[in-house]
């Protein structure tokens, strides 16, 4: 059995054109945010662990450009891009990463657990692969309550080795759930290259479940947006699909990882496929002036600095308030 081909490109190109400036802006917001997070982390202003998705922004920007607010996503430990592209408040995001009471999660989650239910962002996740079955459940609820709405499970190539992927693919296929599996294959699972961990391809795995599979250059925002558009429309109508986005990891597994296990040449190569540079080159050729690009960058930076100022002015969370919130306060929905 082979994966059902989707032949998305022709029909997608016939549809509405991709809004490249919007994709560019979405990617730039993620990039500039993570660059600032790197310095804030180095300066000790962001505690804990952070995992940056620099170099992978096109996946978040491209996929999310085709989702509505009602669509839900389950993210990963490397999830800042997913969160921002899904439309989280930038101030709430920075306040959370700076561990403030005003943060989206009141300073209890941090980078690895940032979530915003109001925009359908069901959480970054510190457990590799765990978002898969959460998205499965969300898709199940959509099918029953909100036909036409979908759930998206983001996962890295590291999660290919998790057994939960099999269970989730199987159930999604059995029940024809509106669930899009988006694998961000950056070639690295923590400190080991994928080829030392994975003995199969996601294409062949998808074929085993007869789930439609597409592979796309994950560093080409326009391609991700175009391909995912039609795939997502198909998922809304008829059931699950897998989209594998080939991308690169620029930074270490976590901030502070010196990547001594990695060839210098490999690190130089990843810079050449930078999705933002590529998008910028296209924009310069066709639509946007240097001044307009600079103005956009200045806008993004200013929004980020503003959010950081707000976060810095925030307060520490209150311990008693946190302790009281382990369970839903009683008096609501209880006998």
């Amino acid at each position, binding site marked *: 059995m082979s994966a059902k081909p989707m032949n998305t490109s022709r029909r997608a190109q016939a549809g509405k054109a991709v809004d490249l400036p919007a994709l560019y802006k979405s990617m730039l917001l993620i990039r500039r945010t993570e660059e600032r997070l790197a310095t804030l982390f180095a300066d000790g202003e962001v505690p804990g662990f952070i995992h940056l998705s620099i170099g992978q922004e096109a996946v978040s920007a491209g996929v999310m450009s085709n989702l509505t607010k009602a669509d839900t996503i389950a993210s990963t430990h490397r999830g800042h891009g997913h969160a921002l592209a899904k439309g989280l408040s930038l101030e709430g995001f920075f306040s959370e990463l700076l561990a403030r009471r005003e943060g989206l999660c009141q300073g209890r989650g941090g980078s690895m*657990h940032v979530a915003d239910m109001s925009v359908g962002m069901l959480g970054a996740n510190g457990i590799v692969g765990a978002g898969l*079955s959460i998205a499965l*459940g969300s898709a199940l609820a959509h099918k029953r*309550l909100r036909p036409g709405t979908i759930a998206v499970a983001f996962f890295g190539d590291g999660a290919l080795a998790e057994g939960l992927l099999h269970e989730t693919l199987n159930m999604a296929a059995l029940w024809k759930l509106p669930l899009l599996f988006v694998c961000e294959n950056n070639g690295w699972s923590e400190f080991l290259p994928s080829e030392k961990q994975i003995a199969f391809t996601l294409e062949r795995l998808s074929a085993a479940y007869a789930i439609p599979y597409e592979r796309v250059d994950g560093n080409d925002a326009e391609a991700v947006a175009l391909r995912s558009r039609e795939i997502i429309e198909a998922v809304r109508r008829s059931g699950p699909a897998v989209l594998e986005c080939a991308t690169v990891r620029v930074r270490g597994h976590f901030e502070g990882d010196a990547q001594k296990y990695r060839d210098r040449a490999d690190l130089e190569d990843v810079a050449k496929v930078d999705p933002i540079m590529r998008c910028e080159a296209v924009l310069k050729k066709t639509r946007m002036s240097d001044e307009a690009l600079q103005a956009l960058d200045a806008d993004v930076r200013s929004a980020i600095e503003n959010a950081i100022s707000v976060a810095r002015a925030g307060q520490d969370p209150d311990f008693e308030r*946190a302790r009281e919130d382990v369970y*839903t306060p009683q008096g609501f929905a209880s006998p």
Partner: protein
Amino acid sequence: MTEIRYLRAINMALADAMAEDDTVVVFGEDVSEAGGSFGASRGLRDRFGPDRIFDTPISEAAIAGAAVGVAMSGLRPVIEIMFMDFITLTMDALVNQAAKARFMFGGQGSVPMVLRTPHGAGLGAGPQHSQCLEAWLAHVPGLKVVCPSDPASAYGLLRAAIRDPDPVIMVENKALYGMKAEVADELPVLPIGKAAILRRGKEVTLVSYGASVHICSAAAAQLEADGISAEVIDLRSLQPWDEATVLESLSSTHRLVVVHEAVEAFGPGAEIAARMADVGFDELDGPIVRVGAPFMPVPFSKALEGRYLPDAAKVVAAVRRTLA
């Protein structure tokens, strides 16, 4: 009054919850077409249809993980894990996802899911189909754990669990499934975290939950014949547990025995004994004694399993020890 079995009470609670709230959905292995491995959901598919109750593959991790996503997205799932031993396969979804979601997302939402699962030995089911692992779950902030001892509490606690906004594990001793009892025609929903005093007594308090409650009642009857008056408390809920009721009883009897089928070491009784040794220190006239299973896997042979399980004689011996 009518007489119903424990399993029927669970079935009624599921049906009444599904009738009351059409966001309640039930899924798990063989719960729908077969009506449940033990028959707890018999007839529900015919009444509510396959969108409300459906079978899953044998994928415990994804069943529990999906329940978390379902609960975050507007439905109230009730899942069944066929034997409590199999919760090992659901632990990430329970411990890292369901239990923490409300807290770690800053109270943005809750995860109103229920996991029903049978525990308990005595049926010769062997080491991987008999364990009482409720202490693991009661140890996790964010989870609630209930363990009913009879048909009325099975009904009342399951209704409460399904209405509860947070994740609740309902542990059912499978040896009780066939138990019959008289119940009121209108069964009440019971509050989670509230114990019941089943028998008043003066000289010792016996605290337990689930099937062990009946061992305590039998022990209390034997002790009464010997002129010893024992109070019997059915905790009903383990997380949260009704510390106030236990302390109040201890304050009148001054002696405490905690009984459960779970392995004694690091079991729920350890928490109860430790709390009472602390907040009830001034009330104690004797050692707090625990009766639980020995520190070994549940054996298969009746010859071994009989020795393994707590029984009334062990409870009576424990009472004599604290009274000595």
